[in-house]
Protein backbone atom coordinates (compact mmCIF):
# COMPACT_ATOMS: atom_id res chain seq x y z
CA UNK A 1 0.00 0.00 0.00
CA UNK A 2 2.76 2.44 0.80
CA UNK A 3 4.43 2.28 -2.57
CA UNK A 4 6.98 4.98 -3.23
CA UNK A 5 5.01 6.10 -6.27
CA UNK A 6 1.84 6.61 -4.28
CA UNK A 7 3.64 8.43 -1.49
CA UNK A 8 5.50 10.79 -3.78
CA UNK A 9 2.37 11.58 -5.72
CA UNK A 10 0.52 12.21 -2.49
CA UNK A 11 3.25 14.63 -1.44
CA UNK A 12 3.21 16.42 -4.77
CA UNK A 13 -0.55 16.74 -4.73
CA UNK A 14 -0.31 17.97 -1.18
CA UNK A 15 2.20 20.64 -2.09
CA UNK A 16 0.11 21.84 -5.03
CA UNK A 17 -2.97 21.89 -2.84
CA UNK A 18 -1.09 23.58 -0.04
CA UNK A 19 0.03 26.38 -2.28
CA UNK A 20 -3.54 27.00 -3.24
CA UNK A 21 -4.63 26.89 0.41
CA UNK A 22 -2.07 29.60 1.09
CA UNK A 23 -3.90 31.82 -1.38
CA UNK A 24 -7.17 31.21 0.40
CA UNK A 25 -5.65 31.79 3.83
CA UNK A 26 -3.71 34.86 2.74
CA UNK A 27 -6.62 37.23 3.17
CA UNK A 28 -7.42 35.87 6.60
CA UNK A 29 -3.77 36.08 7.60
CA UNK A 30 -3.92 39.78 6.92
CA UNK A 31 -7.23 40.46 8.63
CA UNK A 32 -6.72 38.22 11.59
CA UNK A 33 -2.99 38.58 11.86
CA UNK A 34 -2.50 42.27 11.22
CA UNK A 35 -5.88 43.77 11.91
CA UNK A 36 -7.17 41.51 14.66
CA UNK A 37 -10.45 41.25 12.77
CA UNK A 38 -11.92 37.81 12.87
CA UNK A 39 -13.49 37.56 9.46
CA UNK A 40 -15.00 34.13 9.69
CA UNK A 41 -16.80 34.90 6.45
CA UNK A 42 -13.56 35.04 4.45
CA UNK A 43 -13.97 31.57 2.92
CA UNK A 44 -17.48 32.52 1.91
CA UNK A 45 -16.08 35.57 0.13
CA UNK A 46 -13.78 33.17 -1.67
CA UNK A 47 -16.80 31.14 -2.76
CA UNK A 48 -18.41 34.36 -3.89
CA UNK A 49 -15.29 34.93 -5.96
CA UNK A 50 -15.68 31.44 -7.38
CA UNK A 51 -19.18 32.23 -8.52
CA UNK A 52 -18.08 35.49 -10.09
CA UNK A 53 -15.41 33.62 -12.01
CA UNK A 54 -18.01 31.03 -12.98
CA UNK A 55 -20.43 33.65 -14.28
CA UNK A 56 -17.74 35.41 -16.31
CA UNK A 57 -16.37 32.15 -17.63
CA UNK A 58 -19.81 30.81 -18.51
CA UNK A 59 -21.04 33.93 -20.25
CA UNK A 60 -17.91 35.43 -21.75
CA UNK A 61 -15.59 32.49 -22.01
CA UNK A 62 -12.87 34.37 -20.15
CA UNK A 63 -10.22 32.29 -18.44
CA UNK A 64 -11.15 32.03 -14.76
CA UNK A 65 -7.77 33.26 -13.51
CA UNK A 66 -8.09 36.37 -15.61
CA UNK A 67 -11.65 36.79 -14.41
CA UNK A 68 -10.48 36.62 -10.82
CA UNK A 69 -7.79 39.19 -11.39
CA UNK A 70 -10.18 41.43 -13.28
CA UNK A 71 -12.62 41.47 -10.41
CA UNK A 72 -10.01 41.86 -7.70
CA UNK A 73 -10.34 45.68 -7.73
CA UNK A 74 -14.11 45.40 -7.22
CA UNK A 75 -13.51 43.07 -4.30
CA UNK A 76 -10.90 45.50 -3.01
CA UNK A 77 -13.53 48.22 -2.83
CA UNK A 78 -15.90 45.80 -1.16
CA UNK A 79 -13.28 45.09 1.47
CA UNK A 80 -12.76 48.77 2.12
CA UNK A 81 -16.49 49.33 2.52
CA UNK A 82 -16.69 46.33 4.82
CA UNK A 83 -14.04 47.79 7.08
CA UNK A 84 -15.91 51.07 7.25
CA UNK A 85 -19.03 49.34 8.47
CA UNK A 86 -17.08 47.19 10.89
CA UNK A 87 -15.26 50.16 12.29
CA UNK A 88 -18.32 52.34 12.76
CA UNK A 89 -20.44 49.63 14.30
CA UNK A 90 -17.97 47.63 16.30
CA UNK A 91 -14.44 48.82 16.64
CA UNK A 92 -15.44 52.26 17.78
CA UNK A 93 -17.74 50.94 20.45
CA UNK A 94 -15.41 48.20 21.59
CA UNK A 95 -17.84 45.43 20.74
CA UNK A 96 -15.54 43.44 18.52
CA UNK A 97 -15.49 40.26 20.47
CA UNK A 98 -19.16 39.42 20.63
CA UNK A 99 -21.00 41.51 18.09
CA UNK A 100 -18.20 41.86 15.56
CA UNK A 101 -17.70 38.14 15.43
CA UNK A 102 -21.39 37.50 15.05
CA UNK A 103 -21.56 40.17 12.36
CA UNK A 104 -19.22 38.20 10.14
CA UNK A 105 -21.03 35.00 10.97
CA UNK A 106 -24.28 36.59 9.86
CA UNK A 107 -22.59 37.95 6.75
CA UNK A 108 -21.30 34.50 5.91
CA UNK A 109 -24.80 33.14 6.23
CA UNK A 110 -26.31 35.86 4.07
CA UNK A 111 -23.80 35.40 1.26
CA UNK A 112 -24.31 31.66 1.30
CA UNK A 113 -28.07 31.93 1.22
CA UNK A 114 -27.87 34.55 -1.51
CA UNK A 115 -25.88 32.20 -3.68
CA UNK A 116 -28.29 29.37 -2.97
CA UNK A 117 -31.23 31.57 -3.93
CA UNK A 118 -29.69 32.52 -7.25
CA UNK A 119 -27.75 29.43 -8.20
CA UNK A 120 -29.17 26.63 -6.14
CA UNK A 121 -27.10 23.91 -4.55
CA UNK A 122 -25.83 22.36 -7.76
CA UNK A 123 -22.11 22.17 -8.26
CA UNK A 124 -20.69 24.66 -10.70
CA UNK A 125 -17.52 24.28 -12.73
CA UNK A 126 -15.54 26.36 -15.16
CA UNK A 127 -13.99 25.32 -18.40
CA UNK A 128 -10.49 26.23 -19.45
CA UNK A 129 -8.06 24.66 -21.89
CA UNK A 130 -5.75 23.34 -19.21
CA UNK A 131 -8.35 21.64 -17.04
CA UNK A 132 -8.16 17.91 -17.58
CA UNK A 133 -4.59 17.86 -18.80
CA UNK A 134 -1.76 16.47 -16.76
CA UNK A 135 1.99 16.86 -17.02
CA UNK A 136 3.94 13.76 -16.31
CA UNK A 137 7.44 13.76 -14.89
CA UNK A 138 8.34 10.12 -14.75
CA UNK A 139 5.73 8.61 -12.48
CA UNK A 140 4.86 11.93 -10.88
CA UNK A 141 1.63 13.53 -11.99
CA UNK A 142 1.12 17.26 -12.17
CA UNK A 143 -2.54 17.78 -12.98
CA UNK A 144 -2.68 21.18 -14.61
CA UNK A 145 -5.95 22.05 -12.95
CA UNK A 146 -3.95 22.12 -9.74
CA UNK A 147 -0.61 23.28 -11.05
CA UNK A 148 -1.87 26.47 -12.61
CA UNK A 149 -3.62 27.58 -9.42
CA UNK A 150 -0.53 26.64 -7.46
CA UNK A 151 1.63 28.92 -9.57
CA UNK A 152 -0.82 31.79 -9.40
CA UNK A 153 -1.21 31.29 -5.67
CA UNK A 154 2.54 31.40 -5.04
CA UNK A 155 2.88 34.50 -7.18
CA UNK A 156 0.06 36.22 -5.32
CA UNK A 157 1.44 35.23 -1.92
CA UNK A 158 4.87 36.43 -2.89
CA UNK A 159 3.40 39.66 -4.20
CA UNK A 160 1.53 40.38 -1.00
CA UNK A 161 4.60 39.52 1.07
CA UNK A 162 6.73 41.94 -0.92
CA UNK A 163 4.06 44.60 -0.74
CA UNK A 164 3.82 44.31 3.02
CA UNK A 165 7.55 44.40 3.58
CA UNK A 166 8.76 46.82 0.93
CA UNK A 167 6.16 49.49 0.35
CA UNK A 168 5.27 52.36 2.65
CA UNK A 169 1.62 51.37 2.90
CA UNK A 170 2.55 47.75 3.36
CA UNK A 171 4.74 48.50 6.32
CA UNK A 172 2.10 50.81 7.70
CA UNK A 173 -0.29 47.87 7.61
CA UNK A 174 2.17 45.76 9.56
CA UNK A 175 2.68 48.58 12.00
CA UNK A 176 -0.94 49.39 12.63
CA UNK A 177 -1.50 46.24 14.62
CA UNK A 178 1.55 46.81 16.73
CA UNK A 179 1.60 50.49 17.43
CA UNK A 180 -1.29 52.65 16.38
CA UNK A 181 0.07 55.78 18.01
CA UNK A 182 3.42 55.57 16.29
CA UNK A 183 1.60 55.22 13.03
CA UNK A 184 -0.40 58.35 13.68
CA UNK A 185 2.75 60.23 14.55
CA UNK A 186 4.17 59.13 11.21
CA UNK A 187 1.27 60.86 9.55
CA UNK A 188 -0.70 57.83 8.44
CA UNK A 189 -4.38 57.54 9.28
CA UNK A 190 -4.87 54.17 10.98
CA UNK A 191 -8.40 53.88 9.69
CA UNK A 192 -7.34 54.38 6.11
CA UNK A 193 -4.53 51.90 6.54
CA UNK A 194 -6.86 49.27 7.90
CA UNK A 195 -9.34 49.94 5.13
CA UNK A 196 -6.70 49.25 2.54
CA UNK A 197 -5.60 46.14 4.38
CA UNK A 198 -9.08 44.66 4.43
CA UNK A 199 -9.49 45.71 0.81
CA UNK A 200 -6.40 43.74 -0.14
CA UNK A 201 -7.57 40.78 1.89
CA UNK A 202 -10.93 40.60 0.13
CA UNK A 203 -9.27 41.18 -3.22
CA UNK A 204 -7.18 38.07 -2.66
CA UNK A 205 -10.45 36.26 -2.07
CA UNK A 206 -11.52 37.10 -5.61
CA UNK A 207 -8.43 35.47 -7.08
CA UNK A 208 -8.49 32.57 -4.64
CA UNK A 209 -12.10 31.94 -5.57
CA UNK A 210 -11.24 31.75 -9.23
CA UNK A 211 -8.46 29.30 -8.42
CA UNK A 212 -10.79 27.22 -6.30
CA UNK A 213 -13.31 26.66 -9.03
CA UNK A 214 -10.53 25.54 -11.34
CA UNK A 215 -9.43 22.91 -8.86
CA UNK A 216 -12.85 21.60 -7.88
CA UNK A 217 -16.54 22.09 -8.52
CA UNK A 218 -18.09 24.60 -6.17
CA UNK A 219 -21.42 24.93 -4.41
CA UNK A 220 -22.41 27.47 -1.76
CA UNK A 221 -21.70 25.44 1.37
CA UNK A 222 -18.14 24.55 0.36
CA UNK A 223 -17.00 27.71 2.13
CA UNK A 224 -17.74 26.22 5.50
CA UNK A 225 -15.40 23.31 4.85
CA UNK A 226 -12.66 25.82 4.31
CA UNK A 227 -13.19 27.73 7.53
CA UNK A 228 -11.40 25.06 9.50
CA UNK A 229 -8.55 24.76 7.04
CA UNK A 230 -8.04 28.44 6.76
CA UNK A 231 -8.10 29.14 10.47
CA UNK A 232 -5.90 26.12 11.07
CA UNK A 233 -3.38 27.54 8.62
CA UNK A 234 -3.42 31.02 10.10
CA UNK A 235 -3.16 29.78 13.67
CA UNK A 236 -0.57 27.11 12.89
CA UNK A 237 1.54 29.51 10.89
CA UNK A 238 1.50 32.12 13.59
CA UNK A 239 -0.38 35.34 13.66
CA UNK A 240 0.69 37.96 11.20
CA UNK A 241 3.37 35.94 9.45
CA UNK A 242 2.85 35.53 5.70
CA UNK A 243 5.77 33.16 5.49
CA UNK A 244 4.29 31.15 8.33
CA UNK A 245 0.98 31.04 6.49
CA UNK A 246 2.65 29.57 3.44
CA UNK A 247 4.55 26.94 5.41
CA UNK A 248 1.48 25.97 7.39
CA UNK A 249 -0.62 25.80 4.24
CA UNK A 250 1.86 23.46 2.60
CA UNK A 251 1.96 21.28 5.69
CA UNK A 252 -1.79 21.02 5.88
CA UNK A 253 -2.02 20.39 2.17
CA UNK A 254 0.39 17.48 2.41
CA UNK A 255 -1.26 15.99 5.49
CA UNK A 256 -4.68 16.22 3.88
CA UNK A 257 -3.37 14.65 0.74
CA UNK A 258 -1.98 11.72 2.70
CA UNK A 259 -5.20 11.22 4.62
CA UNK A 260 -7.24 11.40 1.44
CA UNK A 261 -4.97 8.97 -0.40
CA UNK A 262 -4.72 6.38 2.34
CA UNK A 263 -7.93 6.78 4.31
CA UNK A 264 -10.44 8.20 1.91
CA UNK A 265 -11.38 11.72 0.84
CA UNK A 266 -14.42 12.06 3.08
CA UNK A 267 -12.16 12.56 6.09
CA UNK A 268 -10.16 15.36 4.51
CA UNK A 269 -12.25 18.27 5.89
CA UNK A 270 -11.78 16.97 9.40
CA UNK A 271 -8.01 17.28 9.08
CA UNK A 272 -7.99 21.05 9.10
CA UNK A 273 -10.24 21.29 12.10
CA UNK A 274 -8.39 18.56 13.91
CA UNK A 275 -5.05 20.29 13.41
CA UNK A 276 -6.60 23.55 14.53
CA UNK A 277 -7.83 22.05 17.77
CA UNK A 278 -4.50 20.37 18.43
CA UNK A 279 -2.56 23.55 17.74
CA UNK A 280 -4.82 25.56 20.02
CA UNK A 281 -4.37 23.01 22.75
CA UNK A 282 -0.59 22.73 22.52
CA UNK A 283 0.94 25.83 21.00
CA UNK A 284 -1.63 28.53 20.30
CA UNK A 285 0.88 31.01 18.97
CA UNK A 286 1.70 28.74 16.06
CA UNK A 287 5.05 27.84 14.59
CA UNK A 288 6.26 31.29 13.75
CA UNK A 289 4.29 33.29 16.24
CA UNK A 290 5.75 35.00 19.25
CA UNK A 291 4.93 33.51 22.66
Amino acid sequence: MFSAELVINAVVTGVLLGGFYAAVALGLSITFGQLDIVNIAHPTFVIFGSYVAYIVNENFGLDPVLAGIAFAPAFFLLGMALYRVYYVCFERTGQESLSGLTFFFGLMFIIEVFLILFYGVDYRLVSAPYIGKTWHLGFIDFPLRMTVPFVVAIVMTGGVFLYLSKTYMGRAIQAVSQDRLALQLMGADPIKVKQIALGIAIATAAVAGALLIIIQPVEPSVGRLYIGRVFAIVVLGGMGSIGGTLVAALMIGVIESFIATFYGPSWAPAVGYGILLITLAIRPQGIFGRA
Partner: protein
Amino acid sequence: MAAILIAGFLFTQGADNEFYFFASYVVLQGLVMAVAWNILGGFAGYVNFGSAGFFGAGVYTSIVLNKAFALPLPLLIVASGCVCGLLGLATGVLTLRLKGIYFAIATLAIAIMLETVASNWEYVGGAAGTFVLQPTEFFVFDSYIELLFMVMLSLSILAMIVARYLSSSKIGHGLSAIRDDELAAECMGVPTLRLKLVSAVTMGALMGMAGAPYPFFVTFIDPISAFSLLIAVNAIAMPMIGGTAAWYGPVIGALVLGLVQEISTVTISSELNLLIVGVMLVGFITLAPQGIVGLARKLWLKKRSP
Protein backbone atom coordinates in the same frame (compact mmCIF):
# COMPACT_ATOMS: atom_id res chain seq x y z
CA MET B 1 -44.10 29.06 34.91
CA ALA B 2 -46.54 26.42 36.06
CA ALA B 3 -49.29 28.51 34.56
CA ILE B 4 -47.63 28.31 31.16
CA LEU B 5 -47.37 24.56 31.45
CA ILE B 6 -51.03 24.20 32.31
CA ALA B 7 -52.04 26.60 29.58
CA GLY B 8 -50.05 24.56 27.10
CA PHE B 9 -51.70 21.39 28.24
CA LEU B 10 -55.16 22.85 27.84
CA PHE B 11 -54.16 24.04 24.41
CA THR B 12 -53.40 20.52 23.33
CA GLN B 13 -56.76 19.34 24.52
CA GLY B 14 -58.63 22.16 22.88
CA ALA B 15 -56.96 22.85 19.55
CA ASP B 16 -57.46 20.56 16.62
CA ASN B 17 -55.35 21.94 13.85
CA GLU B 18 -52.12 19.98 14.03
CA PHE B 19 -50.21 22.63 12.18
CA TYR B 20 -50.12 24.86 15.26
CA PHE B 21 -48.36 22.14 17.16
CA PHE B 22 -45.82 21.61 14.44
CA ALA B 23 -45.07 25.30 14.26
CA SER B 24 -44.99 25.75 18.01
CA TYR B 25 -42.62 22.84 18.42
CA VAL B 26 -40.15 24.47 16.07
CA VAL B 27 -40.45 27.85 17.77
CA LEU B 28 -40.03 26.32 21.22
CA GLN B 29 -37.06 24.30 20.08
CA GLY B 30 -35.51 27.53 18.92
CA LEU B 31 -36.30 29.01 22.31
CA VAL B 32 -34.46 26.30 24.20
CA MET B 33 -31.46 26.64 21.90
CA ALA B 34 -31.50 30.41 22.21
CA VAL B 35 -31.75 30.42 25.99
CA ALA B 36 -29.00 27.83 26.20
CA TRP B 37 -26.75 29.76 23.85
CA ASN B 38 -27.20 32.89 25.87
CA ILE B 39 -25.96 31.25 29.05
CA LEU B 40 -22.48 31.15 27.61
CA GLY B 41 -22.81 33.83 24.97
CA GLY B 42 -24.71 36.58 26.69
CA PHE B 43 -23.87 35.91 30.31
CA ALA B 44 -20.21 35.04 29.97
CA GLY B 45 -19.43 36.63 26.62
CA TYR B 46 -18.16 33.57 24.79
CA VAL B 47 -19.67 33.10 21.33
CA ASN B 48 -20.62 29.58 20.27
CA PHE B 49 -20.80 29.11 16.51
CA GLY B 50 -21.32 25.40 16.67
CA SER B 51 -24.68 25.15 18.38
CA ALA B 52 -25.67 22.74 15.64
CA GLY B 53 -22.93 20.43 16.87
CA PHE B 54 -24.48 20.11 20.31
CA PHE B 55 -27.96 19.83 18.87
CA GLY B 56 -26.87 17.22 16.34
CA ALA B 57 -25.03 15.27 19.01
CA GLY B 58 -28.26 15.19 21.00
CA VAL B 59 -30.14 14.03 17.93
CA TYR B 60 -27.74 11.21 17.22
CA THR B 61 -27.41 10.13 20.83
CA SER B 62 -31.16 9.80 20.81
CA ILE B 63 -31.12 7.80 17.57
CA VAL B 64 -28.36 5.46 18.72
CA LEU B 65 -29.88 4.75 22.12
CA ASN B 66 -33.32 4.33 20.64
CA LYS B 67 -32.03 1.92 18.05
CA ALA B 68 -29.90 -0.07 20.46
CA PHE B 69 -32.10 -0.17 23.53
CA ALA B 70 -35.48 1.29 22.50
CA LEU B 71 -35.41 3.64 25.46
CA PRO B 72 -38.41 5.86 26.13
CA LEU B 73 -38.23 9.53 25.28
CA PRO B 74 -37.58 10.96 28.76
CA LEU B 75 -34.53 8.76 29.19
CA LEU B 76 -33.32 9.71 25.75
CA ILE B 77 -33.58 13.35 26.69
CA VAL B 78 -31.62 12.86 29.88
CA ALA B 79 -28.98 10.80 28.10
CA SER B 80 -28.56 13.42 25.38
CA GLY B 81 -28.29 16.06 28.03
CA CYS B 82 -25.47 14.18 29.72
CA VAL B 83 -23.59 13.44 26.52
CA CYS B 84 -23.77 16.99 25.30
CA GLY B 85 -22.97 18.37 28.70
CA LEU B 86 -19.76 16.36 28.56
CA LEU B 87 -19.18 17.64 25.07
CA GLY B 88 -19.47 21.18 26.37
CA LEU B 89 -17.01 20.34 29.11
CA ALA B 90 -14.51 18.88 26.67
CA THR B 91 -14.76 21.85 24.34
CA GLY B 92 -14.40 24.22 27.24
CA VAL B 93 -11.42 22.51 28.78
CA LEU B 94 -9.63 22.60 25.46
CA THR B 95 -10.34 26.17 24.51
CA LEU B 96 -11.87 28.33 27.20
CA ARG B 97 -8.45 29.21 28.50
CA LEU B 98 -7.75 31.13 25.33
CA LYS B 99 -9.32 34.20 23.85
CA GLY B 100 -12.99 34.06 23.00
CA ILE B 101 -12.37 33.81 19.27
CA TYR B 102 -10.55 30.50 19.59
CA PHE B 103 -13.44 29.08 21.54
CA ALA B 104 -15.83 30.24 18.82
CA ILE B 105 -13.84 28.60 16.05
CA ALA B 106 -13.39 25.46 18.10
CA THR B 107 -17.14 25.13 18.47
CA LEU B 108 -17.50 25.40 14.72
CA ALA B 109 -14.76 22.84 14.28
CA ILE B 110 -16.44 20.40 16.59
CA ALA B 111 -19.78 20.83 14.86
CA ILE B 112 -18.29 20.02 11.48
CA MET B 113 -16.24 17.14 12.80
CA LEU B 114 -19.31 15.63 14.44
CA GLU B 115 -21.20 16.03 11.19
CA THR B 116 -18.37 14.25 9.36
CA VAL B 117 -18.42 11.42 11.89
CA ALA B 118 -22.17 11.04 11.58
CA SER B 119 -21.91 10.99 7.79
CA ASN B 120 -19.44 8.14 7.94
CA TRP B 121 -21.20 6.08 10.57
CA GLU B 122 -23.22 3.27 9.01
CA TYR B 123 -25.08 2.36 12.18
CA VAL B 124 -27.04 5.61 12.02
CA GLY B 125 -27.42 5.54 8.29
CA GLY B 126 -24.35 7.51 7.32
CA ALA B 127 -24.78 10.31 4.86
CA ALA B 128 -27.99 8.87 3.51
CA GLY B 129 -29.78 9.28 6.78
CA THR B 130 -32.13 7.07 8.72
CA PHE B 131 -35.83 6.71 9.41
CA VAL B 132 -37.24 6.86 12.90
CA LEU B 133 -40.62 5.50 13.90
CA GLN B 134 -42.94 7.53 16.04
CA PRO B 135 -44.23 5.51 18.96
CA THR B 136 -47.93 4.68 18.80
CA GLU B 137 -48.79 5.55 22.37
CA PHE B 138 -49.80 9.10 23.04
CA PHE B 139 -51.13 8.87 26.61
CA VAL B 140 -53.66 11.66 27.15
CA PHE B 141 -52.99 13.47 23.93
CA ASP B 142 -54.78 13.27 20.63
CA SER B 143 -51.68 12.72 18.59
CA TYR B 144 -47.97 12.18 18.95
CA ILE B 145 -47.25 15.68 17.82
CA GLU B 146 -49.20 17.08 20.74
CA LEU B 147 -47.06 14.96 23.04
CA LEU B 148 -43.90 16.29 21.48
CA PHE B 149 -45.23 19.81 21.82
CA MET B 150 -45.73 19.32 25.55
CA VAL B 151 -42.26 17.81 25.85
CA MET B 152 -40.69 20.80 24.14
CA LEU B 153 -42.79 23.18 26.22
CA SER B 154 -41.52 21.50 29.37
CA LEU B 155 -37.94 21.75 28.13
CA SER B 156 -38.48 25.42 27.37
CA ILE B 157 -39.67 26.06 30.88
CA LEU B 158 -36.76 24.10 32.27
CA ALA B 159 -34.35 26.17 30.19
CA MET B 160 -35.94 29.41 31.32
CA ILE B 161 -35.84 28.40 34.96
CA VAL B 162 -32.18 27.45 34.67
CA ALA B 163 -31.30 30.67 32.87
CA ARG B 164 -33.21 32.82 35.31
CA TYR B 165 -31.60 31.11 38.28
CA LEU B 166 -28.14 31.45 36.80
CA SER B 167 -28.53 35.08 35.91
CA SER B 168 -29.66 36.27 39.32
CA SER B 169 -27.43 34.06 41.41
CA LYS B 170 -23.88 34.51 42.56
CA ILE B 171 -22.81 32.52 39.50
CA GLY B 172 -24.61 34.97 37.26
CA HIS B 173 -22.80 37.91 38.84
CA GLY B 174 -19.52 36.13 38.33
CA LEU B 175 -20.35 35.48 34.68
CA SER B 176 -21.21 39.13 34.14
CA ALA B 177 -17.90 40.08 35.67
CA ILE B 178 -16.13 37.67 33.33
CA ARG B 179 -17.94 39.16 30.37
CA ASP B 180 -17.08 42.71 31.38
CA ASP B 181 -13.43 42.20 32.26
CA GLU B 182 -12.09 38.71 32.73
CA LEU B 183 -8.75 39.74 34.20
CA ALA B 184 -10.32 42.05 36.76
CA ALA B 185 -12.84 39.35 37.65
CA GLU B 186 -10.07 36.85 38.26
CA CYS B 187 -8.25 39.33 40.50
CA MET B 188 -11.46 39.88 42.44
CA GLY B 189 -11.62 36.23 43.33
CA VAL B 190 -13.88 34.93 40.55
CA PRO B 191 -12.84 31.41 39.50
CA THR B 192 -13.15 32.29 35.84
CA LEU B 193 -12.28 28.98 34.25
CA ARG B 194 -14.58 27.05 36.55
CA LEU B 195 -17.55 29.33 35.91
CA LYS B 196 -16.97 29.29 32.17
CA LEU B 197 -16.96 25.51 32.24
CA VAL B 198 -20.18 25.46 34.24
CA SER B 199 -21.78 27.65 31.59
CA ALA B 200 -20.45 25.54 28.76
CA VAL B 201 -21.73 22.33 30.33
CA THR B 202 -25.15 23.83 31.01
CA MET B 203 -25.39 25.18 27.50
CA GLY B 204 -24.30 21.89 25.98
CA ALA B 205 -26.70 19.86 28.09
CA LEU B 206 -29.70 22.03 27.25
CA MET B 207 -28.90 22.00 23.55
CA GLY B 208 -28.51 18.24 23.61
CA MET B 209 -31.84 17.88 25.31
CA ALA B 210 -33.44 20.07 22.66
CA GLY B 211 -32.08 17.74 20.02
CA ALA B 212 -33.20 14.48 21.59
CA PRO B 213 -36.88 14.55 20.53
CA TYR B 214 -36.08 15.87 17.06
CA PRO B 215 -35.73 12.48 15.35
CA PHE B 216 -39.28 11.65 16.42
CA PHE B 217 -40.51 14.97 15.18
CA VAL B 218 -39.19 14.68 11.64
CA THR B 219 -39.07 10.87 11.36
CA PHE B 220 -36.25 11.10 8.88
CA ILE B 221 -32.82 12.39 9.85
CA ASP B 222 -29.66 12.85 7.90
CA PRO B 223 -26.47 14.58 9.06
CA ILE B 224 -27.15 17.68 7.00
CA SER B 225 -30.46 18.39 8.67
CA ALA B 226 -29.30 17.38 12.13
CA PHE B 227 -26.27 19.65 12.00
CA SER B 228 -27.98 22.29 9.93
CA LEU B 229 -26.42 25.72 9.76
CA LEU B 230 -29.86 27.26 10.22
CA ILE B 231 -30.00 25.85 13.72
CA ALA B 232 -26.65 27.39 14.54
CA VAL B 233 -27.60 30.74 13.08
CA ASN B 234 -30.95 30.81 14.86
CA ALA B 235 -29.28 29.94 18.13
CA ILE B 236 -27.20 33.10 17.74
CA ALA B 237 -29.73 35.31 16.02
CA MET B 238 -32.53 34.83 18.54
CA PRO B 239 -30.54 35.97 21.58
CA MET B 240 -28.84 38.78 19.69
CA ILE B 241 -32.13 40.08 18.33
CA GLY B 242 -33.94 39.67 21.61
CA GLY B 243 -31.11 41.04 23.72
CA THR B 244 -28.32 39.12 25.40
CA ALA B 245 -28.18 40.99 28.68
CA ALA B 246 -31.25 39.49 30.31
CA TRP B 247 -32.34 35.88 30.64
CA TYR B 248 -35.63 36.66 28.91
CA GLY B 249 -33.97 38.35 25.92
CA PRO B 250 -33.52 35.09 24.02
CA VAL B 251 -37.11 34.18 24.82
CA ILE B 252 -38.36 37.36 23.17
CA GLY B 253 -35.99 36.87 20.26
CA ALA B 254 -37.07 33.27 19.82
CA LEU B 255 -40.73 34.14 19.80
CA VAL B 256 -40.28 37.04 17.39
CA LEU B 257 -37.84 35.38 15.02
CA GLY B 258 -39.53 32.00 15.29
CA LEU B 259 -42.88 33.45 14.39
CA VAL B 260 -41.43 35.46 11.51
CA GLN B 261 -39.80 32.34 10.16
CA GLU B 262 -42.89 30.19 10.44
CA ILE B 263 -44.98 32.81 8.69
CA SER B 264 -42.48 33.38 5.91
CA THR B 265 -41.89 29.67 5.36
CA VAL B 266 -45.58 29.20 4.78
CA THR B 267 -46.29 32.34 2.80
CA ILE B 268 -43.12 32.96 0.79
CA SER B 269 -40.53 30.22 0.63
CA SER B 270 -38.15 28.50 2.96
CA GLU B 271 -35.01 29.74 1.20
CA LEU B 272 -36.09 33.33 1.47
CA ASN B 273 -36.77 32.58 5.09
CA LEU B 274 -33.08 31.83 5.59
CA LEU B 275 -32.18 35.12 4.03
CA ILE B 276 -34.56 36.92 6.37
CA VAL B 277 -32.89 35.37 9.39
CA GLY B 278 -29.46 36.40 8.19
CA VAL B 279 -30.52 39.92 7.34
CA MET B 280 -32.33 40.38 10.62
CA LEU B 281 -29.31 39.14 12.50
CA VAL B 282 -26.87 41.45 10.76
CA GLY B 283 -29.36 44.29 10.86
CA PHE B 284 -29.89 44.05 14.58
CA ILE B 285 -26.21 43.61 15.33
CA THR B 286 -25.21 46.71 13.44
CA LEU B 287 -28.14 48.93 14.33
CA ALA B 288 -29.45 47.67 17.65
CA PRO B 289 -26.69 45.70 19.34
CA GLN B 290 -28.56 45.53 22.62
CA GLY B 291 -31.45 43.79 20.96
CA ILE B 292 -35.13 44.32 21.55
CA VAL B 293 -34.61 44.38 25.29
CA GLY B 294 -32.07 47.15 24.86
CA LEU B 295 -34.38 49.17 22.64
CA ALA B 296 -37.20 48.76 25.12
CA ARG B 297 -34.98 49.95 27.93
CA LYS B 298 -33.90 53.01 25.97
CA LEU B 299 -37.51 53.91 25.24
CA TRP B 300 -38.41 53.38 28.88
CA LEU B 301 -35.60 55.65 30.03
CA LYS B 302 -36.60 58.31 27.51
CA LYS B 303 -40.14 58.27 28.81
CA ARG B 304 -39.02 58.69 32.40
CA SER B 305 -36.79 61.70 31.82
CA PRO B 306 -38.30 64.10 29.28
